[in-house]
């Protein structure tokens, strides 16, 4: 079942069309990455899903319920973690959680229990300081805890890691990964390594449209460039490996009749990058040569297209 459906969503600011008819389907219990460069319209889209911003056209439904502007968060169905969450500085974390619980009409016993559990999850359990003295990272973590308090079906996180140090980023990503069995996460970011770490599915927003979407696996297989990279210990090893190659450019060991043709090769010092037609066959043939010639490679790998490559391809 889909938790979030967006159909043909549109938004303009003045003459500038920021969102130009995008559609999204976010399945339950997934971490959905919403990627785009700065200013692509990620926050705008998320604010419209939250009901914080009026849309110009299109439809948004969360768990089958249409989102109306002004009815923020559909009465607790959607949790929201803004990119810079703002709290009341005069409160302590537990006090803030209790207030949020009461506002969501949760029974106070349950609030205490869940608040303690969540503050433990984000590492703020024994924090007695007032929120006003918190660092940015601590506020971000408290933001995650408060957003999860009333067990929203959909958690919207707007660039939750963009301003954190490496440890804070690792922590927040860890938390988001851990909660996927409890809720569905829509995560916007422009940090591609974050996407690779936690997201199941992604959509790339570019020029107001969805330039590419699907699961990470789908995207990879759709865009896989068939390349094998091999790195040798020395130039002599490389020469030895290349010796049986004939002028036609086929990888044909002397002892074998079946050569493995490659389309193009890139030669960089002791490293070779080969573009091949059949990855498996080529790999098998190469391993055979390496064994026959007693060449010990430093590295031999099939190159997976990274998120960066996919992203650049999508917005090109």
């Amino acid at each position: 079942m889909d938790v979030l459906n967006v159909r043909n969503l549109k938004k303009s600011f003045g003459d500038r069309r920021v969102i130009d008819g995008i559609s999204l389907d976010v399945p339950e219990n997934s971490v959905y990455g919403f990627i785009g460069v700065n200013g692509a319209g990620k926050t705008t889209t998320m604010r419209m899903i939250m009901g914080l911003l009026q849309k110009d056209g299109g439809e948004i439904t969360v768990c089958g319920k249409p989102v109306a502007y002004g009815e923020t968060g559909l009465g607790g169905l959607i949790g929201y973690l803004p990119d810079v969450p703002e709290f009341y500085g005069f409160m302590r974390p537990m006090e803030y959680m209790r207030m949020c619980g009461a506002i969501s009409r949760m029974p106070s016993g349950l609030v205490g229990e869940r608040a303690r559990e969540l503050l433990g999850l984000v590492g703020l359990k024994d924090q007695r300081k007032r929120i006003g003295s918190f660092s940015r990272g601590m506020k971000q973590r408290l933001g995650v805890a408060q957003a999860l308090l009333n067990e929203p079906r959909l958690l919207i996180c707007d660039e939750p890691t963009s301003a954190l140090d490496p440890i804070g980023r690792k922590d927040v990503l860890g938390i988001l990964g851990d909660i996927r069995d409890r809720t569905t996460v829509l995560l916007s970011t422009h940090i591609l390594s974050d996407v690779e770490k936690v997201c199941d599915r992604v959509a790339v927003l570019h020029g107001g449209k969805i330039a590419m979407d699907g699961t990470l696996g789908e995207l990879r297989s759709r865009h896989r460039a068939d390349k094998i990279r091999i790195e040798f210990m020395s130039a002599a090893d490389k020469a030895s490996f290349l010796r049986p190659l004939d002028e036609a450019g086929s990888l044909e060991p002397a002892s074998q009749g079946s050569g493995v043709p490659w389309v193009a090769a890139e030669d960089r010092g002791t490293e070779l990058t080969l573009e091949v037609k059949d990855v498996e066959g080529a790999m098998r043939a190469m391993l055979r040569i390496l064994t026959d010639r007693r060449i010990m490679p430093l590295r031999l790998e099939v190159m997976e297209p990274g998120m960066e490559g996919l992203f650049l391809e999508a917005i090109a």
Partner: protein
Amino acid sequence: MTPFAAFCGKELMEVRRTYRLYILMAVFALLGLMSPIVAKVIPDLIGGMGIEGVVITFPESTAMDSWTQFFGNVSQIGILALVIVYGGIMSGELSKGTLVNVLSKGIGRGEVVMSKFAVASAVWTACYLLSFAAAYAYTEFLWDSNETADAALAFACPWAYGLFMLSILILGGIAFKTTYGSLLTVLGATVLMGLASLIPGSKWVNPLTVSGESYALLNGARPPMEFALPLAVCVSLTAACLAASVLAFRRKGA
């Protein structure tokens, strides 16, 4: 606990922990104490200046002078302090974005506006009562005779004016999202009422009438109707400002 009660709790915690409550209470206690003292010593001070050859005679000051001082102080310095302390009542939250989390938890925008107004009103009422108690005790002590004609209406007038100012601050905050916007809205409204008071006969409906002159009710110098009507207008405008705030807040978003 309802969302309304929870948000009221937050508002109350805010005025305490940011010391606004204590600042206001100190100001109002001082205003209450000062009124009878000033009324008592001013004739002595001026009379004692002893300009050669000029004899200044003052009538003996009365409890009425003390109450005249009280109404003047509360409706000017007191209201100014209230407006400054509560200048950011809405704008502070809107400009920082602290309401986003709270709204996403399912509190209604009307509940936010009304709980803010409720707690600010309670604080204002407490401060006003404190000031009144101080002035009353000292006035009794110094003169032990008090006028009582229409006292309830007389003291309700500045109180209602304070509530009116709070509702304007909220509306201004929602409209402009900055503290300056809130304060300028109050200033603009005051200037407008001041200009309107130049129109003959407008005192019957101008809320400005209730701000600082209702001491005249205490000794029966002016009839109650002269204040009851503008008081009714003041209360209606307060309600109108709150309704407009809720509607504007629903339309503008956070």
